[in-house]
């Protein structure tokens, strides 16, 4: 099969955000069976097959090469894919699905504020209580790595498959490692995050598989997808300024040098076009006025396509 297989989350806010993200980039995803199907396609782009899977299934499929690219959280990638950098490439942070993976202990532990305290408590735990300190989590690998980095060795992991934050209160564990976005669930369960207990600041990522079968068609399609994403992202950051001025070449060169602007269509004649960072717009306008420009307009663009897309160059270098 020469299709590019794109895996996106099948439910919840993550799905809504992912669908909106692709739609903004000119890649509207159409779900089969009126939004209830588990497959779909991108309207107007042949050769891309969309699979709707849970975020953890997406991580697994990317690791095994069952999908070429997918949207999933960095937490799941780091947790569930051993040797992640050999199997996948992180293409792009998507700006949604924020979640921190943290170490949290009961608020009542007023003597514990950091990992060094937790280490001390853990080391004396068996002598005091006849068993190891227990940490409830579904992030077994992240926890082991982080605790090892902090030299904490005297603990046991209790695997938790849901409502991890309730484990200390119901006596199945002493502390937890879990994700948090606002911290309110932790607070509601009388838990606090350790000062140096943030294991990972995660968000949704576009991730490419290095294990998938990369045909020429799949590569071509991924490049199209990444071109559009980058073009939309650049259009979001940049404003286009049009103006009329007598000595266009001098003014254009000046703007490029002074404001890190770009003159995408050259500087011949007297009608100028500049692309500038959105935060610089009014500074450039004022400066153009002082240089004698008239009829200055500023507009947002939908897409700005560049000759080379950085994310594609990076991914292509990592693909087999």
């Amino acid at each position: 099969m020469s299709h590019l297989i794109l895996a996106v989350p099948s439910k919840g806010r993550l799905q809504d955000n992912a669908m909106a993200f692709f739609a903004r980039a000119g890649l509207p995803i159409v779900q089969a069976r009126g939004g209830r199907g588990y497959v779909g396609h991108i309207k107007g782009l042949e050769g891309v097959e969309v699979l709707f899977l849970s975020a953890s299934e997406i991580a697994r499929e990317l690791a095994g090469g069952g999908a070429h690219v997918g949207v999933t959280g960095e937490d799941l990638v780091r947790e569930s894919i051993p040797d992640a950098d050999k199997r996948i490439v992180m293409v792009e942070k998507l700006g949604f699905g924020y979640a921190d993976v943290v170490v949290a202990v009961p608020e009542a532990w007023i003597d514990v504020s950091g990992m060094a305290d937790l280490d001390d408590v853990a080391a004396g735990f068996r002598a005091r209580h006849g068993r190891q300190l227990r940490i409830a989590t579904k992030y077994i690998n992240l926890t082991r790595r982080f605790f090892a980095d902090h030299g904490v060795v005297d603990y046991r992991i209790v695997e938790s498959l849901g409502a991890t934050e309730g484990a200390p209160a119901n006596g199945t564990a002493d502390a937890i490692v879990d994700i948090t976005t606002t911290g309110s669930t932790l607070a509601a369960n009388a838990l606090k995050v350790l000062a140096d207990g943030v294991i990972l600041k995660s968000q949704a990522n576009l991730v490419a598989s290095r294990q998938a079968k990369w045909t020429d068609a799949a590569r071509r399609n991924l490049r199209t997808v990444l071109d559009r994403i980058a073009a939309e992202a650049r259009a979001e950051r940049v404003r286009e300024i049009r103006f009329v001025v007598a000595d266009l070449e001098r003014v254009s060169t000046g703007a490029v040098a002074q404001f890190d602007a770009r003159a995408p269509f050259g500087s011949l004649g007297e009608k100028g076009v500049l692309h500038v960072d959105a935060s610089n717009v009014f500074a450039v306008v004022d400066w153009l006025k002082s240089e004698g420009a008239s009829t200055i307009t500023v507009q947002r663009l939908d897409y700005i396509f560049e000759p080379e897309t950085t994310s594609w160059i990076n991914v292509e270098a990592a693909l087999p």
Partner: protein
Amino acid sequence: MSNSANTSARERFLAPFLAAGYAAVDPPVLQPAELMLDLLGEDLGRRLYLTTDAEGREWCLRPEMTLPVCRLHLVSGSHERLGAYAYHGAVFRQRQGAGVGEFTQAGAELLGRQDSEQADAEILAFALDVARRGGLACPVVRMGDAGLFRAFLGALDLTPSWRRRLSRAFGRGQLLPHTLPELSVQRKGLAKEGVLGALAGADRAGARALVEDLLAIGGLQAVGGRSVAEIADRFLEQAEDAAGGALPAATAQAIAEYLAISGPADQSVARLDALLASHRLDLGRARASLTLRLRAIEDARNGPADLVLDFGFGRRLDYYSGFVFEVEAEAAKAQPAIGGGRYDGLVTLLGAPTPVPAVGFSVWIDRLAGAGA
């Protein structure tokens, strides 16, 4: 390797032990996963091969031999009897990447011997013998002493929390580079400085009651298996540490000097005694034990070896309690081929009703190329 070649390698390894009255053992390959995880730690836990039986009990393929041999000792008779065991067999640890996680480990364990120094020396002599048979004409051995370091910390004027922290860092090799410098500077920016400061120097029972009341008023339930009293005690300890300031420079200096002592055994002992004399420290039984052990090692060893006594050398202290040693595979190789030591606390954790003195060593056969061949 063919089966018969493997068998004969095993027989060749075991022969000297059998001649000395050791029993050759082959403990079950399947071991209870819970117990192994509990005693070996989560860090090795991620490398276990796990399986579940029909009743839902979790088992693992043995990742090392010492614990299975000790379990065998416990189930086959009184825990107090003498046990001398030698083994040579497969252990299983998952490796990153595609490599097969089956290795050959061999070694010996001595359980129940009350003459600890003699037992230490006997085990080291066997380890050296194995190293020489494995092709190291003059093995390089690094020796340390966890019991002596404990006694040293005990003799210094330290708060309990400092002693615990120094002791843990020692076993992990972090003491000189990290922990000692950290403890030598005054801790700053403690959020609890106000309360901690107010509690410092207060009568302990009264202060503890106050902290317990504070927790109760705040509605903070002692969840997660720790008691309010325990939390209060440790909180007060922090108050005392904060009031006491940094580790005194002279104490930090003494610890640094102690850890830096490394060299031929007689020279290291002389430097140790000079250090103890200058700081007027008496390590009691632990110091006497060192001399007894070194003498026993001289008597027991039966060939050339380069013995280095390094007081900064520690292995995991929750596991090893006294004499520890490593034989380097070759000067250039990072990982030791043979490691061993005394683990007096371990058999109790496996269920022995009273402590069982224990010492042993194990060999990674792959790292010691010609072993037994």
